[in-house]
């Protein structure tokens, strides 16, 4: 099979590495060598000061954390990786590919990872560290790792799809549809991360009482603006609970605005995009723009929640907002497409009551504000280790 194309770049590994994967010995989930490799990778990355997302990945894949994860997978220690995983990673979140790769190799597989098309320093840093480890202490894992870069080209996706046992597609929907034009072998399975939306809910009174407001704002910033509010985990709608909603909102958004103005660069095309998004939604749904001095933070107070509201979501700091008295009022936007609810000042049992009472079709995770991007091996409702490994039954 052809694995060399003029537009295909092998950043880690080579066409020979990819070609050899078929014959490779699959590993058990949480193989000791793999954990050792990821722990060394963690040492190289978790001290990174320039990129919090690189440090976060580094922190996630340290040995102690992985052993904790391993303990949860007691029952599958006799399983094997399915073989070869082809990962198509998102272009708008720089380190996502690293989590996808780590999950694939932890499950016991060889991995072909398509890196983001956009260039990010974070990608270079992580690739550099992986290369360094593979060339030295972890040569044994060389055959299991291929990182590639290529423009959207069906022939290349065809080739990698044809040799994989699992295909992981980080969406959105259009990307999934595009990649699905490349056939998979009959026994291969696919994990797709489709377009999702997320929400945040804040208890106004708890917020006002908090003495670490700047940290809360920083966390919120990391959940939103850090990825242009364009990750599936980024909240697009903010719910407010509690009594002193107006006071809390005033304080919260004043601080967010200051942080954004200091750190965020807004391109003219984003301003036009936000204005467009505002007009598009307000033309058909009653809502009020909250007056602001500039375009850094766009807030729309929604009069009535509908299940299609999130079809109008936008990025670059574009927030729907709604006052509620009970979590159950969030239900209309908690349909199948709803992924993450991030929160501040709300007790776990309040969420439990909401989930019991309303039984939403969506919501895969409920996490504190600042933790939306924290990767977990159960992601978007998929148990990645189990989906990428197989069990052999002996009777």
């Amino acid at each position, binding site marked *: 099979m052809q694995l060399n194309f003029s537009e295909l770049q092998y950043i880690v590994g080579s066409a020979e590495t990819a070609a050899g994967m078929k014959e490779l010995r699959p590993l058990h989930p949480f193989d000791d060598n793999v954990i050792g490799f990821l722990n060394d990778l963690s040492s190289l990355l978790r001290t990174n000061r320039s990129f919090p997302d690189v440090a976060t990945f580094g922190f996630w894949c340290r040995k102690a954390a992985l052993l904790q994860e391993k303990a949860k997978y007691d029952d599958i220690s006799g399983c094997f990786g399915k073989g070869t995983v082809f990962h198509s990673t998102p272009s708008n979140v720089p380190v996502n590919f690293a989590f996808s790769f780590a999950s694939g190799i932890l499950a016991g597989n060889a991995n072909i990872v398509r890196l983001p098309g956009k260039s990010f320093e974070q990608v270079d840093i992580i690739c550099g560290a992986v290369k360094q480890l593979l060339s030295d202490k972890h040569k044994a894992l060389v055959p299991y790792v291929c990182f590639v870069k290529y423009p959207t080209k069906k022939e290349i996706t065809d080739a990698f799809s044809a040799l994989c046992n699992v295909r992981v597609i980080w969406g959105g929907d259009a990307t999934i549809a595009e990649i699905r034009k490349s056939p998979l072998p009959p026994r291969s399975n696919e994990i797709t991360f489709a377009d999702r939306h997320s929400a945040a809910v804040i208890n106004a009174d708890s917020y006002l009482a908090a003495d670490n407001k700047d940290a809360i704002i920083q966390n919120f910033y990391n959940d939103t603006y850090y990825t242009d509010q364009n990750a599936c985990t980024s909240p697009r709608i903010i719910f407010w609970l509690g009594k002193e909603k107006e006071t809390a909102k005033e304080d919260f958004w004043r601080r967010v605005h200051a942080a954004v103005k200091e750190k965020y660069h*807004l*391109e*003219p*095309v*984003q*301003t*036009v995009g936000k*204005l*467009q998004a*505002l*007009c*598009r939604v*307000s*033309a*058909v*749904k*009653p*809502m*009020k*723009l909250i*007056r602001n*001095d*500039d*375009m*850094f933070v766009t807030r*729309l107070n929604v009069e009535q929640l509908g299940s299609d509201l999130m079809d109008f979501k936008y990025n670059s700091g574009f927030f729907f907002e709604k006052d509620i008295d009970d979590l159950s009022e969030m239900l209309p936007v908690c349909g199948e497409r709803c992924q993450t609810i991030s929160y501040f000042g709300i007790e776990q049992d309040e969420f439990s009551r909401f989930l019991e009472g309303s039984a939403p079709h969506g919501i895969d995770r409920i996490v504190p504000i600042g933790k939306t991007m924290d990767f977990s091996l159960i992601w978007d409702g998929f148990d990645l280790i189990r989906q990428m490994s197989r069990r052999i039954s002996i009777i």
Partner: protein
Amino acid sequence: MTYDDMLNIPPYSLSKADKDKLLAERLRELTLLHREKCPEYANILNCLGFEPDSIKKPADVPFLPVRMFKEMELRSVPKEEIVKTMTSSGTTGQAVSRIFLDRTTASNQQKTMVKIVSDFTGSSRMPMIIIDSPGVIKDRAMFSARGAGILGFSIFGAKKIYALDEDMKLDVDGLRNFTEQYSGQKILLFGFTFMIWQHFYKELLRLRDEGIIFDLSNGVLIHGGGWKKLVSEAVSHDEFHSRLKDVCGIQDIHDYYGMVEQTGCIYMECECGHLHASNFSDIIIRRAEDLSECGIGETGIIQVVSAIPESYPGHSLLTEDEGAILGEDDCPCGRKGRYFKINGRLKNAEIRGCSDTYAAKFQ
């Protein structure tokens, strides 16, 4: 003042104070009209918390992004009154703008264009060479900004020929017969910037090497559609002028800026190389950070306002183009009003507008 009254004022005669007053009043009326007749527009104003009474000058009028017309049908007249639907150019798969015209708006577009262009070409009709293929207006699917531009300018032509055939090849015999027949008369030439360069200028240059020379020194050339493709071929405005003059003697050359969403109110380039706003429309430059108004010379996002649109709420639009006001009321050409320059599309914006669609495919 009615629009007909406005048409009776010479198009570049009003200085700032008078123009602002006249235009603000008309734009306020249009804002009220569209709020009453177009529910989506009313909803948007409501969301913005906008009160039409607060309009004191043209820059106070709220603006819609031009892309709105790609995303939804916005009309301020019942369907039965629509006589023409214009669409913007767009490559396959791209959304196109849909602009709905009733009789009044369509007619005002044409009258306005006549007033503006006549200021540059004189008011009598001229023999006209259209530097494009007749296919552009025959094919309904292609009846887009290019077709609309050609039809719009055709009203200035007495006798017309298309200089290019269906394959975009220069019709050498047709052009020769036409120029011989009308030699000594002023001839109007019209086309899109990139097509003129690619299919007209380059062909004339080749023909000259074969000894075939056309004399168009009596001609006036009007071209539009943007410079994007020529910039990538490293052809500057000045070079465009000098090379055309060199190959066929034409010297009277005017670029124009305009868009299908505000047909009629085009911005013509004067003898000094400046694009001009007429009495019927204006250019406002805005800062991306807060959408506040830029000062003279400061680059920002271009907003356009037009006194024409009655059948669709497109009287005030934020474009996806970038530019700067160069001055107001004091251009050496003597025309009043704002004059400005266009830098091109905002970085990363979807490519749209007249001939750039073709340019994108041409590579």
